[in-house]
């Protein structure tokens, strides 16, 4: 199904309706988005942030980024920043800032974009429901230790 408002390269992933458009966005409905499985690609530490940190920077925080990709064709990419804080014997790893992706969420009929703001909101909900922290921690310790 090709949107009447834009050109698309038809690329279906099984029963999922996921379209790669000529503008680079991968379009899918919110309903479909929450059925997609993302796998970990790479995570890293904010090396530049560490070197540029002010002298009074909180030494109990570590920040970095993580990148995930979908197991679909076309491929969807989802990346975000994270912050690990420690204190009182506890460590908390949280998403920071807005996610980065090539995803544009559409309405259920895939005729209308929900727009970047709503897409980001839905991606944030998706990320926050994913058990990503363990994978990121494992990747960081393997890469840097």
């Amino acid at each position, binding site marked *: 199904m090709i949107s009447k408002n834009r050109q698309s390269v038809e690329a279906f992933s099984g029963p999922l309706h996921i379209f790669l458009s000529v503008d680079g966005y991968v379009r899918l409905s919110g309903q479909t988005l929450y059925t997609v499985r993302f796998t970990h690609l790479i995570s890293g530490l904010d090396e530049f942030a560490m*070197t540029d940190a002010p002298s009074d920077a909180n030494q109990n925080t570590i920040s970095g980024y993580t990148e995930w990709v979908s197991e679909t064709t076309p491929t969807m990419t989802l990346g975000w920043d994270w912050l690990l804080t420690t204190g009182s014997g506890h460590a908390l790893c949280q998403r920071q800032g807005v996610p980065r992706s090539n995803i544009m969420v559409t309405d259920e009929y895939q005729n209308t974009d929900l727009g970047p703001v709503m897409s980001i909101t839905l991606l944030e909900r998706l990320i926050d429901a994913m058990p990503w922290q363990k994978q990121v921690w494992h990747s960081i310790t393997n890469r840097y230790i």
Partner: protein
Amino acid sequence: MHIISGSRQNLSDGLYEELAAYRYQVFVEHLGWQLDTIPGHEADQFDRDDTVYVVARHNDGKISGCARLLPTCRPYLLGEVFPELLNGLPAPHSPAIWELSRFTAFDSNGQVKHGAGQFSSPVAVSLLGESIATAARMGAQRLITVSPVGVERLLRRAGFHAHRAGPPMILGGHPLFACWIEVADASALVTSTMRIQ
């Protein structure tokens, strides 16, 4: 600091050779890129007569940063070497789309910020702004660049409208991705950004 731009024949005498030596120092010697190039002179098949260079220089004339602009209607780095970063889409081919490459800000103290950090300094932001303005004068509406992961968020923090063209891939041990930079939004930012004199 001042920034100039132009094709090889428009650069002042000796500047192109200086630029090639500077690029060798930065990309080969400091960043360790495995490039097939003459020692002391970094150039590849995309350094052509129609290639546009943006060069930042200290007041003493020493080069402090550079960028390379290529029209996508002729062979360019992403299209020829890294098309897999476009997620299956054909490489752009348009006079309104230019590629930004060989971007670096190497300061006078010999400190180069590489990877994602190369976009974080004020000099880098000014150089990027001038690169975008130069491309815009030549008709570009969008730039595309192959960059390390992390550049996208730095560009956004600096106020540029940047977004990924496809998923990152691990190439040469480094996660790289193709990044769009929207020129129209950036031009407004450049006019409001104080340039380093």
